[in-house]
């Protein structure tokens, strides 16, 4: 039961935190159409996050908002890829954002497509619903990857740099976590989708004329990373902004 809640938090926090990052683009995208598209993706992920946190909350006796707003950094279980600044902040640009979106949505799509067969009917239903959304996210990222890879020298350079920036965080996506091991039939072992995702990424990068970065592996702290609640230094600032108002008005109704 605890493992199920932890697993829902893992998947839910990925979506919540990445959605928070994507929403930073709102009113800052390169063109109006893209402002709408990124907001759409952020909304889809926020929706997924809400369902997953709600499911975790059923087990833990907490609401989605208690889980989103009243947990401390060490209790968030999202992967580092979701939390790092890939733009519009100083940590990236649109090219980096697209690189992250491509990796994240290809990975999550593969996970969700297996999660449809989960023994937990709620997770299976969430996966079923999310599948179409994630397919759109991945297509959107793939199209932009090709456009930027093929477009101009500058766009090629930038999206390649974006790939280099996010690549060290890819390893974590496929590392099996103890929580997943404890939920056979319920959770998807991310290691099992690695070759599928690799294939997708290789195809897109090849169509875009981009080079797959060398497989480096971001270091861990005593073997721990995002799934264990050990985050990058960017995470604390993200949470401060996200949670401050909620924490400032205890007992308020929204």
């Amino acid at each position, binding site marked *: 039961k605890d493992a199920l809640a932890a697993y829902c938090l893992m998947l839910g926090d990925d979506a919540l935190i990445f959605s928070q990052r994507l929403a930073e683009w709102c009113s800052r*995208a390169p063109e*109006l159409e893209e402002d709408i598209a990124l907001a759409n993706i952020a909304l889809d992920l926020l929706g997924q996050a809400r369902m997953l946190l709600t499911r975790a909350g059923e087990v833990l006796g907490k609401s989605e908002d208690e889980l989103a707003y009243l947990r401390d950094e060490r209790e968030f279980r999202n992967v580092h890829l979701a939390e790092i600044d890939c733009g519009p902040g100083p940590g990236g640009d649109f090219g980096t954002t697209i690189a992250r979106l491509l990796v994240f949505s290809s990975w999550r799509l593969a996970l969700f497509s297996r999660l449809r067969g989960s023994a937990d009917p709620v997770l299976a239903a969430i996966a079923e619903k999310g599948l179409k959304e994630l397919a759109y996210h991945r297509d959107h990222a793939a199209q932009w990857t090709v456009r930027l890879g093929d477009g101009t020298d500058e766009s090629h350079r930038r999206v390649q740099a974006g790939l280099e920036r996010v690549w060290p965080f890819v390893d974590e996506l496929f590392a099996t976590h103890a929580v997943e091991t404890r939920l056979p039939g319920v959770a998807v072992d991310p290691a099992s989708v690695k070759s599928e995702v690799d294939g997708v990424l290789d195809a897109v990068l090849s169509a875009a004329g981009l080079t797959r970065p060398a497989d480096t592996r971001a270091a861990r702290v005593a073997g721990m990373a995002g799934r264990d609640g050990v985050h990058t230094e960017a995470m604390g600032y993200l949470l401060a902004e996200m949670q401050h108002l909620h924490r400032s008005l205890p007992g308020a109704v929204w």
Partner: protein
Amino acid sequence: MADDLELRFERTVQAEARIEPRDWMPDGYRKTLIRQIAQHAHSEIIGMQPEGNWISRAPSLRRKAILLAKVQDEAGHGLYLYSATETLGADREDLTTKLIEGRQKYSSIFNYPTLTFADVGVIGWLVDGAAICNQVPLCRTSYGPYARAMIRICKEESFHQRQGYELLMTMMRGTQQQRDMVQDSVNRWWWPALMMFGPPDSESTNTEQSMAWRIKRDTNDELRQKFVNMSVPQAEALGVTFPDPELKWNEERGQYDFGSPDWDEFWQVVKGGGVCNEQRIAHRRKAHEDGAWVREAAAAHAQKQAVVKEGAA
């Protein structure tokens, strides 16, 4: 011939029928429309900022989703409206340049800062409410693409307005601190909302011709009165007051009397001297400039694809 065309145009407008992009239209009509629709589009785009300011900090996930969807809708409205100007021969890039160089205006209301989350609700209720009062008549405006865009926009804005009001209702049922936040926010936004209808009719230019062309259908003061009449009972239901000691029901007129906004402040903000004018334009400029390489890349890729297809054909 020209007279003939002009006559047909006049008749179409008089008959409350629609002018379509392919129809002949006077130059002044076209220019006035482009300017008006562009300003409206700019307002939607700049209007994303004050509310967008609270997306990352929204105090519940439900409110975050509602707010993000709303700001996204505003981008969508901007897109329809820029498209409508394109049917008149305008160019989106050119209009954007005019916006960020300060050569075209947008609604001054967005030059006020959003200081608390209650502002999100009050903007929905009062600012969108005032916008709807301004825009509902435009659903019957003479230019077809504009009228159709307005129908869709008004529908979505009514939805936003209800959501804003519902947020305030929820907050008023919350803690005392929340109720104080709502009242404070109403105090700050009431007068700027009244200014959204433009200067008093006695000082307003352009109105007469625009009324004749059915681009505009009510005077500023008429719309302002309508808005006040509508808003007072809503405020009562909510449990807030408006910061206007002159506001009271006039039995004789069957309408509310109300005080006069600070028109000096209005003109100051219109002329660029509001709290956030520079910030809003700088934000838009930065987004536009930072995105230039992306738009260039997309164009270059499309160009290459076209060449490939042509070669294949």
